[in-house]
C-alpha cells in the first residue's frame, strides 16, 4: 500500500509537530526558487563576459548544462555586491593578471571570450595554481551547487548534475546499500 507523504510524516513525527515541518518546507521552497537573472550590480558587463568565459571552462557545458547555464556570473556579481564585497579588489587585480597572461600567450587575441576553447584551456592551465583561480573556482562551485536564491544553480542544474535533491524530508532506504534486497 502506498503511504501518502503527509500520512507518513504524521506517523513519524506526531500531528503537533507537523506545523514545524510545514513551515520549514514553505521557506525551503521560497529559498530554492530560481529568480530571473537580475541586472549586474557590480561587474562591468564586458568584465563579466570575460569571467564567464573562464568559469565556463571550470564547469563546461559538455554533456549538459555547465557554469554558464547555471548563471554563475550572476552569483559572482551578487557575492561581490554583498557578502564578498571585500573580494572586488582581488577580482580587479586577478582579472588584470589573467588578461596580461592572455596577451603573452595569444598576442593577437582581443579577449578571453573570443579565444577558442582550446586556447581558453591553455590560458587556464597557465593560471591554475594562482590564488585568484582558486577564488574563481570556489565561487564557481558555490554558485553551481549552492542555494539558487543567490542567483546561481539556475533551475538546479548543479544539483541535477551531481545527483543532489534539496528536500525537507526523505525516508529510508536512502541508498543502494541500505535498501532491502539491495545489498543487505
Amino acid at each position, binding site marked *: 500500500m502506498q503511504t501518502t507523504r503527509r500520512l507518513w510524516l504524521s506517523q513519524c513525527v506526531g500531528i503537533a509537530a507537523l506545523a514545524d515541518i510545514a513551515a520549514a518546507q514553505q*521557506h525551503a521552497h521560497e529559498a530554492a526558487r530560481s529568480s530571473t537573472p537580475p541586472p549586474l550590480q557590480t561587474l562591468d558587463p564586458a568584465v563579466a563576459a570575460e569571467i564567464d568565459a573562464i568559469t565556463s571552462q571550470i564547469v563546461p557545458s559538455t554533456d549538459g548544462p555547465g557554469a554558464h547555464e547555471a548563471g554563475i556570473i550572476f552569483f559572482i556579481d551578487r557575492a561581490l555586491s554583498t557578502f564578498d564585497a571585500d573580494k572586488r579588489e582581488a577580482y580587479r587585480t586577478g582579472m588584470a593578471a589573467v588578461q596580461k597572461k592572455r596577451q603573452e600567450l595569444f598576442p593577437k587575441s582581443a579577449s578571453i571570450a573570443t579565444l577558442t576553447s582550446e586556447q581558453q584551456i591553455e590560458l587556464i592551465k597557465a593560471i591554475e595554481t594562482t590564488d585568484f583561480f582558486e577564488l574563481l573556482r570556489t565561487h564557481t562551485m558555490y554558485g553551481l551547487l549552492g542555494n539558487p536564491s543567490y542567483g546561481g544553480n539556475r533551475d538546479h542544474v548543479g544539483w541535477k*548534475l551531481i*545527483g543532489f535533491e534539496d528536500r*525537507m524530508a526523505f525516508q529510508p532506504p536512502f*541508498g*543502494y*546499500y541500505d535498501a532491502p534486497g539491495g545489498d543487505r
Partner: protein
Amino acid sequence: MSGATFKPSDTVDFLVIGAGAAGGVMAKELSTAGFSVVVLEQGPYLTQKDYRHDEIRYTYQPGLTNDTKIQPITHRRNESETAKPIKAIGYGRQVGGGSVHFTANYWRFHESDFEERSQFGEVPGTGLADWPIKYADLEPYYTKAEYDLGISGLGGANPFEGPRSKPYPLPPMPVKSSGVLFDRAAKKLGLHPYPAPMAILSQPYQDRAACVHCGFCEYFGCEVRAKSSTLVSVIPVAEKTGRCEIRPNSYVRKIETDAHGRATGAVYFDANRREVFQRAKAVALCANGAETARLLLLSKSKSFPQGLANSSGLVGKYLMWDNGGLAMGMFEHPLNEYKSIQVTRVVHDYYKADPKRGFYGGAGLDARFNYYPADFALQGMPPDAPKWGAEYKRMLSTYFTHTMTVLAHTSSLPQLRNSISLDPDLKDAWGLPAMRVTFDFHSDDLATIRWALTKQVEILEAAGAKKTWTLGISKVEDSMPSVHLMGTCRMGNDPKQSVVDRYNRAHDVPNLLIVDGSSFVTAARQQPTATIQALAYRAADYAIQAAKKA
C-alpha cells in the same frame, strides 16, 4: 523567548555567561531549582524559523559561528613566532551555541579516559594526568543529559563503553548506506561496530518532532527541532520557569569581583555597544574552551593581576582539540549520503591507548557524510582528480552520490605550550584584545592521525570500495578551525596544578563556576559535547546543594 526580565541592578542568584551546550543546561537546572538566572549570550537569539538549507550561508559564511571579521583570532605554532590572523578556532555564536549546528554525535567518555596517566604512564613533554573524578562519578549525569535532551542510540551496543544505568531514551536512527558498508566491513575485520548515539530524535520526544532525514545537520540549525540542541530542549524549560532571562547580543568583557575576591557580576556590551553591569550572587562561566580562558585573562584586576582564577598560571594552558584525518571511499552503487543524518555507525576498537603501538594515542572511527555539495566539489574529490574541466565535471556527476567518509577522532595530548592568550596587538571590533592561539601537534598526535588513517582505509577496502583516498593532516593549519575546544581551565584537586576543582568551581573564586570544554584534563578521542553537558548537570547539582545550604 518568553522568560523573565531582570534589571542589571537586580542581584540575580546566578549569572550564566554563554548560552551553549553547557550554559543552556546550567540555566535550566538552576532556574528549575528555584533560582533567578540571567544568561548573557554574545550571539543572537535565532530559532528554527531562521534556519535554511543554505550551504553558502553556513559553510562559506559564518552564519552560525564566530566571525573573524569582527572578532579576529591569531595563531602561532610556538612562542618564538609572531601570531598571524587566521580562523584557528570555530564555535557556535548564538543562543544554543555549538549545540545548534553540531553534527550531534553524543559519545560518552570511557572509564579509561579519566585515568589515562595511571593506565598508560607518563608521556614526556606533556601534562597527561588523571581526572579528579571517575566515570562512575559522571555516569548519572550522562544518563540525565541523555534523557533531558533526547538522545537516540542502543545502550550496551558499544562493548568498550563503561556501565550504563539506563538505556538510551530513544532507539537508534535508521542506518544509512555508509553505516551498512562500515558495519559489514568492520565485522569482517573482527571489530565491534555499533549504532551511533546521536542527539537527534528518532521518534517524537517531549514536544518535538522526529527527524525527517533532510540531511542538513552538521553546520546547520535544525528546521524541525529534531536536533537536541539546548535551544530547543532545556532553554525553553528554563524560560518557562519565569525565573530565567536569556539576554542575547550581550558580549561580556569582564567578570567583576569585590574586595573579598568574590565574583559580583559581569560587564558586557549590549547590542548597541553600551556597557552594562549585571549583578549576581554567583557566576557560571560557560563561554567555551577558548572564550572562557580569554574572558578570565581579560578580567584581571588588582586582586587578580594574572587574570581571574589564575593563581596557578594555567588559565588558557593545555589547549586540546579533536584531531583526525579523513578517508574516503567510492563505491559501485549510489549511497546518497546527503540524505539523513551524518553518522549512523561507530567503531571504538582502536580507542584505548596501547603502549605496544609505540606512541600515545587512540581513535574513535565513524562512517559519515562529510561534505555538502559545494564543499565536496572543492575538497572532497580524490587528490589525483582534475580540479576543473570536462573530466572534473564528469567525475562529480558520479562521485558525490557514490562516496562515503570514514572519519577518525584521535587523541590530542595536553601540552603546556598550547594555549589561549591575549594578542598583544590585534583588537576586536569592540576594542578588546583578540584571541591568540598558540598550538602545534605533539609528535604522538601526528603519529596517531597517520596510524588511524591506515585503519580507516582498511575498513573502506574491506567494504569493497572501488577507490579510496585520504585527506590527512600534515601540518597544524590543516586542522583549523578547530571546533572542539578543551583543556584551558583544567580540573584537579591541587590549586597549584589546576584551575577548577572536581565540581567545576574555580579554586581561587568561591562563587565562580567554570563549566564547558575548558575543564577537561584530557581530550579522549571524540566529540566533547556529551561530556561537557554531563559535567554541567553535575556542576549544577552540587551548586544547587551548596546554594540551598548557604
